[in-house]
């Protein structure tokens, strides 16, 4: 259980990191918090020839409130998000989920950009950023581009990042007034990767009619699974138990693609997705109505 040899670089500026990444491309891996990459290297599932450690670049860790949302630097540790008043105020869905992500010793190291770039379909941050319609700034020596979360996660551990690009920061839009949110998941042990989970946001008008809803599932597909039809179904409706049940049924039967593994069967994951979806919508509705 020891990593294979690699060439190590620890640049102190983003420009130097991008230059190294351009030079080494597919042979290189970027080391952020290392809480996913290093286990894979210990198992030798990953054997990068070159490791570009971006932990010594000082200006990549920040959580800034901006008009309409919050800007999060790639090297922001989960622990920083967990205790950030700005995150609590402007992105409460992310803030409240943070304590559920792994363990204290992992959250001190694990990073916002690292989790997104790793793109584990069982991880929370890819699903949360997809739910909140976040976008990411990808930089390379060729320039930069903003990619919405909905176009960033392409498959299992696969993203829109080109080999010479680094995810430098994300912008997470704030939910409008009278919005509610929820993340529901089932884990075999608390803090483990979820067997199935779902994030929901809803926005209500003054008559409690749903103006907008977004349902994104985790751990039931090869990427965050946006249930577009179920989300659309709720628009223009009061969020009654019947409406919620119909959306959960549609999403869990037709808009996810769970797999079988040692932890759970696909059928069981589908069942969990259905139940959790109802709970998530119920809690999101209650929060939107200001009951909770």
């Amino acid at each position, binding site marked *: 259980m020891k990593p294979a040899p690699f060439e190590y670089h620890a640049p102190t500026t983003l420009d130097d990191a991008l230059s190294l990444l351009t030079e080494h491309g597919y*042979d290189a891996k970027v080391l952020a918090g290392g809480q996913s990459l290093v286990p894979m290297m210990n198992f030798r599932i990953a054997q990068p020839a070159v490791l570009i450690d971006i932990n010594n670049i000082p200006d990549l860790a920040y959580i800034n409130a901006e008009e309409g949302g919050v800007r999060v630097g790639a090297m922001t540790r989960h622990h920083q998000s967990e205790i950030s008043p700005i995150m609590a105020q402007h992105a409460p869905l992310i803030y409240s989920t943070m304590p559920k992500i792994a363990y204290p010793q992992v959250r001190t190291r694990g990073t916002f950009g690292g989790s997104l770039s790793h793109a584990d379909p069982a991880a929370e941050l890819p699903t949360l950023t997809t739910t909140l319609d976040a976008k990411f700034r990808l930089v390379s020596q060729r320039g930069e581009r903003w990619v919405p979360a909905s176009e960033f996660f392409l498959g299992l551990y696969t993203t829109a990042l080109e080999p010479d690009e680094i995810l430098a920061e994300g912008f997470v839009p704030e939910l409008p007034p009278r919005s509610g949110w929820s993340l529901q998941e089932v884990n075999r042990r608390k803090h483990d990767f979820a067997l199935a989970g779902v994030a929901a946001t809803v926005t209500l008008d003054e008559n409690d009619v749903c103006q907008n809803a977004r349902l994104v599932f985790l751990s039931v597909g090869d990427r965050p699974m946006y249930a577009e039809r179920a989300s659309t179904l709720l628009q223009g409706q009061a969020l009654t138990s019947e409406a919620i049940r119909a959306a959960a049924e549609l999403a869990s039967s037709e808009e996810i693609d769970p797999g079988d593994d040692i932890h759970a069967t696909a059928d069981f994951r589908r069942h969990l997705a259905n139940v959790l979806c109802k709970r998530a919508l119920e809690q999101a509705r209650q929060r939107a109505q200001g009951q909770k």
Partner: protein
Amino acid sequence: MEATNQKIELTVTVNGTRYEREIEPRMLLSDFLRHEIGLTGTHVGCEHGVCGACSVLMDDQPVRSCLMFAVQTQGHEITTVEGLGTMDALSPVQQAFHEAHGLQCGFCTPGILTTVTAFLETNPDPSEEEAREAISGNLCRCTGYQHIVDAVLLAAKKKQAAG
């Protein structure tokens, strides 16, 4: 690409002592502590970040030493279980684990002691629920955790009493 023979000069402070070593970048922090500087109090369990036995403090924050390369600690301060107290003068957390029987075989204990030491600095008066959350990243196969939770709460009382 050819396997590299790169060596890096590492200077790191562990338990207040400065160490300089020339190491391969692939050396894990856990192995550095045990094999290079002989601090075998840090235990190696799963080596993929699940068990928590290798937890140490980097700049007073708990980290998994099996999920860091030693070269990443350049210029940082590491605290291992050896840095918490001595045989003659246990730290309040160690004393509490002794009194509350917070261990049996002791394999997981160093990682728990370092983690709890950091936890009580930020949360000096935890609830039982918070104590359980604090040790959620540390597996223990002996105790059933109850005495560990008792020890964490006792340690908090001891630290408060000591001011």
